[in-house]
């Protein structure tokens, strides 16, 4: 069993190493097969290893591999419990599908082998992240997914915008990590260990409310960086420079949910601070609403989905922040299905349109790419919150739990409902502009359905998006039972009574339907074209936040560095050093005047000195 769990990580790692050293030789399509096979086998192994948890009550095990930094309580240890098992299944399952899809999508790219090398590196890192049994391994995975994300976003590095986007993603994530690191310092300071077990079990006895709040908020900073929440979300839209499967795998289904996973995993710490919980929920709600408004104004099909991802991640944060941990994680799973599907579908559309991503040049694609269209419709309904598709169950569980917390949380619930309406609207807008209406294609573009390797994963994900929500329904909360051992330390928020639940569900369904109908009227009945000008431009530019950050943080920062480097360092600090040298030089030049070259004048000087000393001795010593 332990070996099995080791293999789950080791296989993608082996795949990565093989491709790293022999990727060029293996070439296309072998590299894709190697990568997909390793991830696929990992998925199967995870299924086998996770079987025990289905009975419920099983706590899982830790698998210790070797001592890493023993004095910090950090060992290379895996924790195989229901939560990590579920995350592993999502990562390897969705990962394997996207790998297979990529074999078709990346066909003919000169970097084919490199692509799959990075993809396997990502899977390995993500597995480390979710399987780590202490904050150290979590952080290793946390940073390594950042690295893979950097590599994959700037995969087409010849494009300056792609390279810049990769760097931006890594740097913004690092700002989040800054908070994460400080949280780790605080945790180590409080517990003397970074091991999950000792931290979570000792948390209530050890931590004061202040420390707990500090730790939780700092962890939130880290989570906000990785999961693209306000105000650190700016890297995610730019991350769409990467190949579309990357956007699906990393920037929708898995990596960006790491923050949600982390908050859920450390629920025992968040529970101790009502402030932190409220902050997480508020950040989530605001991000959900804010990103949804921006998504409305996008032209690029992938950027719509990017902002949509930010918005959906906001929902997950609302869930875990309100201590509806199961709800948050549940939405993580269903979102992985339907958002991966949307991205892969978008990729299929882009593929069909020969690389065109502007919705202004699409339209009327329904008949041309039927499989893509059909599967995307399922994802569209799922994300819009229409039952019985996946998104409805998870989003509603979150919203109902938030509502059940009462007080100020009801305001946040209302924000969530409005966002649900906006979500339905912008997703419908995207679908209508892409698949309905008159074709607005560029000359020479002949849309065609994608190859089998791409459509099969679409179909699989469509199936999951359709029925995936049924794993946790109010009357049969299987996921909740499954995850119970992982969350037993946390007193979770429960769902309201059945009657209230139904009422709340009705409201949120209504919001979704209204969003759909408004969009239908606008884009189908009135055939509104892609909007331009005025406020739409503001939305398109994401409220110009990038400019704002550029003007208020980046530019002053660079100016300050310039001052430090070329004024303070070169003139002041080094000036002082060279000034000292200059002083000595100057003194030497003055004093060298004494050296006349006249030997006899030196002699006179010596004689004068001798006489002086003798006289001084006579006077001071009292004489003979």
């Amino acid at each position, binding site marked *: 069993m332990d070996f099995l769990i080791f293999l789950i990580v080791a296989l993608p790692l082996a795949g990565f190493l093989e491709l790293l050293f022999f990727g060029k030789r293996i070439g296309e399509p072998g590299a894709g097969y190697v990568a997909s096979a390793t991830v696929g086998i990992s998925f199967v192994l995870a299924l086998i290893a996770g079987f025990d948890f289905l009975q419920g009550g099983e706590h899982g095990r830790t698998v210790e591999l070797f001592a890493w930094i*023993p004095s910090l309580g950090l060992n290379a240890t895996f924790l195989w419990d229901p939560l990590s098992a579920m995350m592993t299944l999502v990562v390897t399952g969705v990962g394997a599908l996207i790998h297979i899809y990529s074999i078709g999508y990346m066909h003919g790219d000169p970097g084919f082998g490199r692509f799959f090398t990075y993809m396997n590196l990502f899977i390995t890192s993500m597995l480390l992240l979710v399987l780590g049994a202490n904050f150290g391994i979590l952080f290793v995975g946390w940073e390594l997914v950042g690295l893979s994300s*950097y590599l994959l976003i700037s995969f087409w590095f010849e494009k300056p915008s792609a390279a810049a986007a990769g760097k931006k993603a890594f740097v913004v994530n690092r700002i989040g990590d800054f908070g994460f690191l400080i949280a780790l*310092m605080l945790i180590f*300071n409080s517990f003397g260990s970074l091991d999950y077990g000792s931290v979570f079990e000792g948390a209530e006895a050890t931590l*004061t*409310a202040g420390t707990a709040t500090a730790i939780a908020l700092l962890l939130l900073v880290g989570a906000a960086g990785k999961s693209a929440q306000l105000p650190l979300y700016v890297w995610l839209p730019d991350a769409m420079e990467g190949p579309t499967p990357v956007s699906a795998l990393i920037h929708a289904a898995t990596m960006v949910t790491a923050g949600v996973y982390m908050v859920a995993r450390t629920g025992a710490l968040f529970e101790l601070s009502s402030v932190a919980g409220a902050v997480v929920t508020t950040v989530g709600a605001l991000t959900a609403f804010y990103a949804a408004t921006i998504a409305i104004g996008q032209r690029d099909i992938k950027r719509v989905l990017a902002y949509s991802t930010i918005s959906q991640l906001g929902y997950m944060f609302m869930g875990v922040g309100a201590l509806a941990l199961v709800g948050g994680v549940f939405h993580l799973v269903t979102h992985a299905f339907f958002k991966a599907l949307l991205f892969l579908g978008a990729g299929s559309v882009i593929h069909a349109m020969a690389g065109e991503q502007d919705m202004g040049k699409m339209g009327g694609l329904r008949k041309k790419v039927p499989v893509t269209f059909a599967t995307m419709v399922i994802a569209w309904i799922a994300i819009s919150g229409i039952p019985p598709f996946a998104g409805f169950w998870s989003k509603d569980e979150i919203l109902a739990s938030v509502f059940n917390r009462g007080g100020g949380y009801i305001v946040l619930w209302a924000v969530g409902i409005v966002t649900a309406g906006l979500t339905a609207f912008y997703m419908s807008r995207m679908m209508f502009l892409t698949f309905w209406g008159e074709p607005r294609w560029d000359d020479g573009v002949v849309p065609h359905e994608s190859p089998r390797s791409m459509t099969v994963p679409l179909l699989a994900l469509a199936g999951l998006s359709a029925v995936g929500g049924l794993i946790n329904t109010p009357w049969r909360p299987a996921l909740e039972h499954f995850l119970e051992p992982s969350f037993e330390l946390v007193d979770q928020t429960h769902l309201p009574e059945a009657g209230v639940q139904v009422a709340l569900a009705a409201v949120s369904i209504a919001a979704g339907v209204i969003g759909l109908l408004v969009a239908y009227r606008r884009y189908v009945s009135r055939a509104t074209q892609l909007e331009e000008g005025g406020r739409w431009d503001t939305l398109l530019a994401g409220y110009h936040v990038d400019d704002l950050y550029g003007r208020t943080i980046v530019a002053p920062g660079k100016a300050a560095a310039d001052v430090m*480097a070329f004024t303070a*360092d070169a003139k002041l*600090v080094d000036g002082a*050093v060279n000034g000292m040298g200059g002083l000595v030089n100057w003194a030497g030049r003055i004093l060298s005047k004494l050296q006349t070259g006249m030997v006899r004048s030196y002699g006179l000087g010596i004689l004068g000195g001798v006489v002086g000393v003798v006289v001084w001795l006579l006077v001071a010593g009292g004489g003979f």
Partner: protein
Amino acid sequence: MHSTFPVIALLVLLPTVGAVVVGLLPKSRRELVLPIATALSTLPLAVALYILWEFSATDGAAFQFTESVSWYEPWGIGWNVGIDGISLLLITLTAILFPLSILASTSVVKDVKLFMVSMLLLETGLLGVFVSLDLLLFFVFFEMTLVPMYLLIGIWGSENRVYAAIKFFLYTALGSALLLTGIVALAVMYGNETGTISFAFQDLLGLELSANAQLWLFLGFGAAFAIKVPLFPFHTWLPDAHTEAPTAGSVILAGVLLKLGTYGFVRFNLTLFPEATVRLAPWLAGLAVVGIIYGAAVAIVQPDVKRLVAYSSVSHLGFIVLGTFALTSQGLQGGVIQMVNHGLTTGALFLLVGMIYERRHTRQISDYGGLAGVMPLFAGVFLFMAFASIGLPGLNGFIGEFKILLGSYLAFPVMAILAASGVVLAAIYLLWAYERMFTGPVTNAANAGLKDLNARELTILVPIALLVVLLGIYPKPALDRIEPAVENIIERIEEATGHESPEFGRIDDLPAATGENSP
């Protein structure tokens, strides 16, 4: 302790013997110089590996392989050498970096023999510093590194080499003068106390010094070490020296020479002047933090890639000093392992910059662009080393930084938090430089035909890369050897001063900014 064979003497003197051999090579066979020098420089490596193998980790606190030959009995001067866990890693690092940097010196054409002789003498000096247990011997080796490095910069450097060499020499010699004064004063004080003067480290450890004497001696020793590290604001010799030095010089300068400063602090200041250490620790930690942020900020805007790496050293060495003066076991362990890590990664970055300089003869970042397409292997290795330097977990840089941050938080929470921002800045300066040099289209035609790494260059880089991964994933063997030595030092400080090295679990010591401590 294992045998009576003077293995340390062999280690230290082998490079000198090598220097003599190289010096005797006939002038007409200059093509032989590099291979022979490389081969000769692997001999100390073999001895170092033997020591590494034979070193007893459980006894890591004690000095092992000790040799003691008296030279001038009345003053207690002699060949007193020994190796503990801290010196063990540093001599290994030194012995590894020398063959690699000599092998990287193919572009040296002027006076190859003198170059190699300088390198090998430099190696003797550096190895000697790390094994000396006699302060005068230490000083001799400490100074012995100065002349070969001066020659390396001054003869084989680039345009501004004379300025840089003189600045390096004078600046560090100034520190050395204060160091020598301190050493002599200490020995004389010992003489006043016991009747016999002694320079032996073990004798001096037993000396009880007044708080005032400790303070002045600490400052004397500290001045030399602070310049060597270099600690802000004594760092300005470094960018000039690093930038102008030939590749091998930069590698050794950054990889090993800077560690003389941090090693000196750990070995002598902490143990000989514990009271002054406790008193001055906040100040030194403060300077270190300034250095971390300042060095990183200045690195961001450097137009010259070699200068950028040089300033990154200022930032990284700040981490080491911060960890050292946190006076916690974790911090100090982190500091020591970070000495090795920085030596490997920054050494590798200088090697890489040297390799690209040999091809294009420019260090300006703006002259490059799009290299990843032209030389993918080179770009990959560069990025790998950059991430190691940034402190990516799983690679070596992280281990040290993480321990330093956790360890120093226990002592100086606010400073540790400020230092953590260096982690963000490191990502900015290295990735921005990578972006400008390696990505985008090839804009300069001169870059289009550049050749990727050849077999010799890979031979140089692969061992470093392997160590970077090994120390990142399985640092335990190294940490096991450092830990007892570090604990020993911390215990000594605690015993001598009553200062309590902060441990974890002090929840009441949160900085005020993080909130109320009500239960």
